[in-house]
């Protein structure tokens, strides 16, 4: 059984198709990048799998069942820029939000949750900043907090929307280490990624997406110039530079 199986997924906003008849299999225990130009539907694909967008057709399964039944197996890292970092709360508090799904309604996080949150902060190298107000974090630190929040979900499949967006080199390295550690423990990671150059180094599998799925599979087979040209159209020239 695959970690994620998407079949015939079609999503449209109004009349404009954002995803068209997309099939996608993510084997367990791999790191997969989703790449494609702006507006290719990468984020939408992720949000549809996670039940935030209703598809016009098709379905997505996580570990063989619809996402609604498998929430505890899934962790999600939204784009860093999607929240207000001036919100009055602390680093530890944001990480604890990763436990809310397990806690269910009304119940507050307890000492066990706090311990899990501190452990996750340690894994992303942020232990000392647990009590810090989140507005005082750098971009890289914000991303680490979001990753820690996903880690405390103790999930099997991790969906990350541009985890490397706007982070410094040290953080990028730390995130790569973290992804590999997750893979070593048999976890699956699916990440929207923008930097084509680093795809072969960071990921095992890749999905090239531009409304339709152009190719999907091991990087060595799918990450070809031909496929990239088909994905990015005339703009394939920037393969080898810093991707869009």
């Amino acid at each position, binding site marked *: 059984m695959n970690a994620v199986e998407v079949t015939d997924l079609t999503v449209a906003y109004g009349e404009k198709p954002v995803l068209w008849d997309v099939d996608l299999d993510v084997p367990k225990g791999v790191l997969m990048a989703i790449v494609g130009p702006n507006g290719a539907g990468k984020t939408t694909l992720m949000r549809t799998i996670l*039940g935030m967008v209703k598809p016009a057709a098709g379905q997505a399964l996580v570990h063989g069942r619809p996402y609604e039944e498998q929430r505890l197996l899934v962790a999600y890292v939204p784009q860093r820029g999607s929240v207000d970092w001036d919100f*009055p709360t602390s680093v530890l508090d944001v990480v604890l939000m990763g436990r809310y799904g397990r806690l269910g309604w009304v119940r*507050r996080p307890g000492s066990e949750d706090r311990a899990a949150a501190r452990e996750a902060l340690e894994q992303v190298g942020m232990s000392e900043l647990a009590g810090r107000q989140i507005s005082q974090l750098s971009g890289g630190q914000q991303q680490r907090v979001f990753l820690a929040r996903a880690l405390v979900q103790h999930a099997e499949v991790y969906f990350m929307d541009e985890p490397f967006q706007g982070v410094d080199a040290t953080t990028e390295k730390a995130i790569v280490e973290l992804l590999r550690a997750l893979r070593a423990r048999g976890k699956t990671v699916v990440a929207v990624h923008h930097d084509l150059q680093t795809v072969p180094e960071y990921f095992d599998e890749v999905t090239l997406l531009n409304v339709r799925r152009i190719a999907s599979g091991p990087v060595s087979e799918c990450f070809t110039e031909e496929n990239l040209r088909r994905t990015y159209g005339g703009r394939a020239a920037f393969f080898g530079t810093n991707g869009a």
Partner: protein
Amino acid sequence: MPELSLLGLALLSDYTLRTVALGSAALGITSGALGTFAVLRRQSLLGDAISHAALPGVALAFLLTGSKASLVLVVGAALAGFLATLLVIGVVSTTRIKYDTALGIVLSVFFGFGLVLLTLIQRRPDASQAGLDRFLFGQAAALLQSDLVTMGILGGAALLLMLLAWKELKLLAFDEDFGTSLGFPMRALDVLLTALLVVAIVIGLQTVGVVLMAAMVIAPAAAARQWTDRLGTLAALAAGFGAAAGVSGAVLSSETERLPTGPTIVLCATAIVLVSLLLAPRRGLVWRELRGRRDRRKLRLAAVLADLRALELQHPGDEHGHSAGVLSVMSGGAEASLLELHRRGLVKRLGPDAWTLTDAGRTETSR
């Protein structure tokens, strides 16, 4: 202070005053605490729309039932306020009109309709309608014990629900998408929060009035945000500020002739906001100005020291020192800085206007 203890005594003994104080404290606590979420979600103006939209609800409730019981009017106000919110959401999702425009349209249409109804009611020959116009600008002195019970029960229930759904509401305010991914019904939580906000607003309408009630939602939270970086403290502080503004304004207006309650309460809330904007540590204007001055002075001193060091390196073996004029050309207004550096033993005087670094000053520049 004798006046204060006198006021305290009056609060305990005077029935009207006690009712006024308790009622306005209840409305201040509720609107302050729930306003926190409205402000954090950038929905301050939703509060304004809800309160203005409540007016036709009050008028219709009276026309339909003939009753002026606060519960009846409050229910009418709440239904109208909630309907207005639904309309705003409907307009935004079905047309190309943006959120702020939709708020403006719904607010003015409902408020206008409410004013028309109010005028019609007041033209009626019998005296039963007297006093409905207090919903415009509020009248704390008209609060009755029965109103207190209504306000207390509704406000208490709203606060209790807020506390029960605290972590879910925090999720809604901070990261709605993540909440959805965890399986919480974020749309329903949004509706819940709006409903609680409606309750917080309608229980204050009789005291503060529809025109200014939004200030009781916005001002306490805005003031409290200056003082804290924690959500729990923020809500508690906003509740406290709301109560303080409510009680002081209501008591002032009911002790003074012809002083309308709503505007007085809002002025008290404004005073709290002003003090917070000016004096709060770290975020306050005064604090920031003082820190700015300290930083600038530090920079000036460091610049003069660095200039002296540069001159020293350019003129090795020079025994005469350098004048303030030369240094001023380099970084401007050096005299005061030189005196301060002299006081700290970082520079020494070789003549009336000839300066050079001391050993300590030299160490300082190489740090």
